[in-house]
């Protein structure tokens, strides 16, 4: 039986975090590991995880540390992390992919697009 794939959410808008949780857990394939509301918190939380998340959803515009900086630091800690940017800031797309994000999803995205991208990039640790 395949395990649930785990997802860590980094997003400063609490309504969006709530929405993402509902959508992600709606089809029974994924579990949300937790959420951080800024880059700084994200890095601290990550360091405390027992297991690496299968996918990290990364917002860009956040207080304290933005998505790009956070991604750079997280990838330094573990270069195999799969980080999917979810941001309205399309100007940051090239940079995000350059520094090692696996994908970039434009905001606002429909529920369908959202799940499609997650399906694409969330990978089991065993794979």
């Amino acid at each position: 039986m395949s395990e649930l794939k785990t997802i860590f959410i980094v997003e400063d808008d609490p309504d969006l975090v709530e929405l993402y949780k509902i959508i992600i857990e709606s089809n029974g394939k994924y579990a949300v590991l937790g959420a951080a509301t800024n880059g700084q918190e994200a890095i601290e939380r990550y360091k405390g995880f027992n297991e690496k998340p299968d996918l990290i959803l990364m917002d860009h515009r956040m207080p304290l540390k933005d998505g790009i900086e956070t991604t750079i630091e997280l990838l330094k800690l573990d270069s195999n992390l799969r980080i999917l940017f979810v941001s309205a800031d399309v100007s940051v797309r090239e940079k995000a992919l350059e520094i090692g994000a696996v994908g970039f999803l434009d905001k606002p995205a429909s529920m369908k697009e959202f799940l499609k991208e997650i399906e694409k990039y969330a990978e089991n640790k065993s794979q």
Partner: protein
Amino acid sequence: MKEKEKDKILIVDDAPGFLITMRTILEREGYDVTTAEDGLKAIEIVKKHEFDLILADLKLPGKDGIEVMKEASKNDPFATGIIITAYASLDTAIGAIRENCYDYVQKPYQVKDLLQRIKKGMEKRKLEKEVVALKVQAEFLNDLMSHDINNMNQTIVGYLGLLLKSGLTEEQREYVEEVQSTMSRSSKLIGNVRKLRQIRGIEPELKAVDLVSVLKKSIEEVKTSHEEKEVTIKFGYEKGKKQYILADSFVSDVFSNILDNAVRFTSSAEVEIDVRVEDYIKNGDEFFKVSIEDRGRGVQDEAKEAIFNRFFKEEQKGSGLGLYLVKTLINRYSGEVWVEDRVKGDYTQGSIFNVAIPKSKLN
């Protein structure tokens, strides 16, 4: 009625006679006057206060007029000064200009002339302040729209999707789809405002772009974003030949917007669009011309140029700024965009949007 605040002038000169004369003249003109007889005293004053204009003699005991202006600029980035001096030299003139000195007047001066220059200097300062304030406000509004409002839109879109899956009646489903359609336009508008701002902020860096590849991607995107309609898009181009245009990464927005409009403005559930790429020469220059033909409701002759304007508002579903973005981008590439009737003389049978972009030397 509240009395209008007087404009403030600081005069710095070591000749007491000059100070008294200038004070009298300027107070009569309605200015609020402060005086200082030496550079050090003046610097103390400008560290604590801002002035609409500073009048300073070049030669002063302690620090000279130019140094006073230097200090004033540290406290007030808009500090504007007029240097008055009996000693003219090119070096000091250049020094004056460097240190935020708006003007440079030689003694003996004409009162009328000096008053004019003072007035002009103050106007310049006011305009500069206004421009910066407007820029700050524009940034704020843009930020609010593209981040905060956009996030809220995402929340709405997300819950609408969940609502649709929660088992609705036919009627409820219809209403939700109406909301989705409007949200889609809202998101597009926000996206376009954002792009326009980005484009304006950076110098165009044109490079060779694979036209066919960009078109294929835009065609795919438009199909997936309009699942409520059956969209058929025929794409005709010369196979086996690479077609490079001189553009940048924003060029896909040109085609996405036109294709999106083509779908939106076709009222039937079945949409047919024809996309063709051809060679095009104008005034000896070589272009690739992309024609996007639809069977939608067309564009009346009177509107054929106006639709590309920023403030154009369609009767139905207008102003997403899409075509304005298209025109802005095409101008950037030194290309051309125009619309013609699919059936000549009858705009109701659909339109052909033509986009000509210069060929890259890479071809």
